[in-house]
């Protein structure tokens, strides 16, 4: 344990790819109190002839919302580090979209908070995905009930608003 001061999460929204190894090393370099680092990398799948995903965000609100949930993760679990990077722009199948990294003295804290963050990113972070297919069709991805259920497991009153 690093003590009572929660870790300061690192949050970025960017078009560029991210470097899993560098981000992981940044959470452990020079520290001897990290017992485990959990990570999740979400990738773009080539479902149904998908040619690309176009990811849009709300600059300002998106970063703020992710920083808020990352701070919540750091208060719910004893994390020594937490990094969330989400890409935007046009991404092709096979490309990484999102990275969540959590470090803790205890493996359970790292694993659970990593799952919590990715479940929330699916349901509460202001991103919108448009699918572009090989045949020229385009379609905005619709929110999934499955994802809402996954996020609801964490039993938090998220800020996601009811219908306007």
């Amino acid at each position: 344990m690093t003590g009572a001061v929660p870790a300061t999460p690192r949050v970025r929204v960017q078009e560029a790819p991210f470097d899993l190894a560098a981000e992981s090393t940044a959470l452990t370099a020079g520290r001897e109190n990290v017992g485990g680092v959990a990570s999740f990398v979400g990738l773009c799948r080539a479902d149904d002839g998908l040619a690309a995903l176009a990811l849009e965000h709300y600059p300002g609100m998106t970063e703020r919302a992710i920083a808020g949930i990352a701070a919540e993760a750091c208060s719910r679990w004893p994390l020594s580090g937490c990094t969330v990077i989400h890409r935007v722009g046009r991404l092709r199948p096979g490309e990484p979209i999102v990275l969540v990294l959590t470090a803790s003295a205890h493996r359970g804290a790292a694993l659970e908070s990593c799952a919590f963050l990715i479940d929330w990113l699916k349901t509460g972070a202001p991103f919108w995905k448009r699918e572009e297919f090989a045949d020229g069709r385009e379609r905005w991805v619709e929110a999934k009930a499955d994802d809402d259920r996954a996020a609801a497991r964490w039993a938090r009153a998220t800020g996601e608003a009811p219908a306007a």
Partner: protein
Amino acid sequence: MQVLYFAWVRQKVGVAEERVSPPPEVADVAGLVRWLSGRSAGHAAAFENAGAIRAAVNQEFAAPDRRLSPGDEVAFFPPVTGG
């Protein structure tokens, strides 16, 4: 009041952002949706099914009864699909 639109809401309205001055009787998010719907055919199409739209006020998710002030930044968008 600055209004922003995202994803297919932006596509239907036809602009990403606009400055509006609604009359004083537009007091909350639901009222703003009704008032914006009258501005153009695009706005009307975007807000046709209000249940499919989410809102944020000053970059925080907001319910339909959220009160509004003239200086607010209000955004409308579909349910989010990140991650």
